[in-house]
């Protein structure tokens, strides 16, 4: 119901021209509003979820906070615009949110067809399968004839269709609106298999009553580079989001953390000095204050801190860095230089 209303509202907004489909000036809009509006998911443990007092937290939300810290100087000034897989791009394109930090896979059709601008990858993911151990299945190749629960509006359903047809297997898709309802269906046994990105499986598994009864199958059937997105047509805003992400990665690479960032201001490393705004004018070139990256690291932390705090091995999700380690440590996380 909600997503339909949104779609219709967005259609109406397009019709009446009442939205901020501003071609430029997102930065001015955000600064005059004093709040950054991020499109996030309706709730995925570890990635974006409100706590008991309604404050949003998680991996994606922390990146939203990092953006707010850079733009407004205060990572607390965010508003979470929740969206289902189906409504997220409509909400972004209709101007309801300023930036999308929401487990979103970068694909050709979204970049070109849906007219989004992507800004790099903050999580390398891939689609996997979760089953009950009692099913006695050890490989996704054994799933011929199974019922599979999927969340709608995702690349997941397309990968799934491709995987099963290319392996000559049949399945019954049970396509549900939200992650939570898909999970309930899996729990109750309506489906044999639950499929989504491996990060999502880890998140879902951690929220099940007996996580040990469930296992993630070894096959990863897709590339899912997840990253932030903005609307077409505002290059300054695109640059800001790109470099917010790069700042967190570079900070980890240079060993700048939220606890040592004040000391690091006195560092001799010129890249650290440029990053933290001691030397140079990179902040003002972006249209921000010169300590924008300092605020990100001070308030939110670097990439590694954000990862470990929300989804790392010491959290209920227990995800190892894997592909998401720095390139210097065998992963794919890599930032262009601050120069």
């Amino acid at each position, binding site marked *: *119901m909600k997503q339909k209303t949104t779609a*219709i509202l967005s259609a109406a907004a*397009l019709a009446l021209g009442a939205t901020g489909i501003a071609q430029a000036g997102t930065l001015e809009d955000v600064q005059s509003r004093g709040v950054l509006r991020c499109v996030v998911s309706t709730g995925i443990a570890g990635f974006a979820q409100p706590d008991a007092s309604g404050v949003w937290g998680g991996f994606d939300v922390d990146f939203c906070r990092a953006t707010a810290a850079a733009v407004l100087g205060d990572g607390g000034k965010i508003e979470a615009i929740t969206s289902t897989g189906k409504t997220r791009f409509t909400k972004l394109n209709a101007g309801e949110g300023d930036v999308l930090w929401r487990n979103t896979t970068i694909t050709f059709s979204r970049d070109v067809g849906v007219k989004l601008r992507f800004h790099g990858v903050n999580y390398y993911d891939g689609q996997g399968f979760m089953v009950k151990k009692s099913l006695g299945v050890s490989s996704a190749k054994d799933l011929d004839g199974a019922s599979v629960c999927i969340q709608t509006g995702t690349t997941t359903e397309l990968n799934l269709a491709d995987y099963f047809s290319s392996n000559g297997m049949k399945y019954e*898709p049970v396509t549900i609106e939200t992650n939570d309802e898909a999970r309930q269906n899996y729990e109750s*046994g309506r489906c044999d298999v639950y499929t989504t990105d491996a990060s999502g499986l880890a998140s879902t598994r951690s929220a099940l009553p007996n996580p040990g009864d469930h296992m993630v199958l070894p096959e990863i059937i897709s590339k899912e580079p997840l990253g932030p997105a903005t609307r077409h047509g505002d290059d300054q805003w695109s640059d800001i989001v790109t470099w917010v992400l790069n700042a967190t990665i570079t900070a980890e690479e240079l060993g700048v953390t939220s606890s040592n960032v004040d000391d690091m201001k006195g560092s001799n490393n010129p890249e650290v000095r440029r990053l933290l705004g001691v030397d140079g004018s990179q902040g003002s070139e972006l249209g921000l204050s010169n300590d924008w990256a300092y605020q990100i690291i001070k308030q939110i932390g670097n990439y590694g801190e954000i990862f470990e705090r929300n989804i790392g091995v010491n959290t209920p999700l227990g995800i190892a860095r894997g592909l998401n380690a720095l390139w210097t440590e065998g992963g794919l996380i890599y930032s262009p230089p601050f120069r």
Partner: protein
Amino acid sequence: MAQASPSTVNPLLRLWRNEDSRGVIIQILTMVVLCALIAAIARNVVINLANVGKEFSFDFLTWPAAYDIGFSPFIEYTNKSTHLRAAVVGLLNTLLVAFWGCILATVLGFILGIMRLSSNWLVSKISYVFVEFVRNVPVLIHILAIYSLVVTLLPSAKKALDVGGGAFFLSNRGFYVPAPVFESGAGIVGIVILIAVIMAILFKRWAKRTQNETGQIYPVFWISIALIVGLAGIAFLIMGAPLSWDIPVLKGFNFKGGMAIKPEFLALWLALSYYTACFIAEIVRAGILAVSHGQTEAAYAVGLKSNRTLQLIIIPQALRIIVPPLCSQYLNLTKNSSLAIAIGYMDITATLGGISLMQTGKEMETMIIVMGVYLVISLTISSFMNWFNHRIKLTVR
């Protein structure tokens, strides 16, 4: 003082002063303003879409959909089919649930409405409490509640309840029943049934004419049933019973063979039906109460029996009151079926207005089509109900 003669007054002003023509002028102006508004909106849409770099086009309907649909009972669909075909699958699923929903809602609604009028205190109060409870809770909650009931209460496929001789199975994957398989000769049985139905209709006409002329009443209903069942049965035996059953068997993860009523369909169908039935119950009660008791007494006075009184006097008059609001309930049910995606039933809102929208980014185009489809369905139901209403309305001679 120079009085302007009528001929020197501006002709437009003269038109304005005339009450009739003024009315026309105001209507024309209103139309112009309305058209300008619509044109402005359409222009805005095109410009704003162009600004975000999107072209307004329906070409995407011919692209491959690339996603699978779990429930397509009528036409073949694979992930290589087009978005248009996915939309048609969704449309047929919408029509399926709307059709069976209207039937079940009507039956339940009449039962509840008549129960409510019962002189038995308990029966009447049960209906009262049920109607008040159900219609004061949003229909989406009913759909979600029924779905979780179905999915959590029923056993999994491997522990499916055998509810009839190893051929009928109930599980949270669906209600599996044997599917009929027609063999050669079944077509002839079908033709015989058709002939029997035509004979029954002719007999009914003859019986009515005879009654009008002589007063003789035949038991038309029972004779028709005997005619159809009897002839069909004889043909079936003569052709050597050309029908076998495909019995569902548990293989691997799921049942194979047979026919299945999926829990998504079941939950949506039941929830929409009993929710709408509660509104229909009140309409039925109003219709029956509106027929004055004097009508019944008058019918008894001329010697009609009580079932004939109901059939010939009460129901025709009550229907005149019931049918118009019944039509809006059918429309409500059809439109509410768009909540299907909440539980994963793939109707037109879920396929074209959901996944296709998402995969192609064509919000405007898909929403226009979906709205058009609901409009056409609703107008079709309305015109059918108008025709029915016209047929049963009071004939003034």
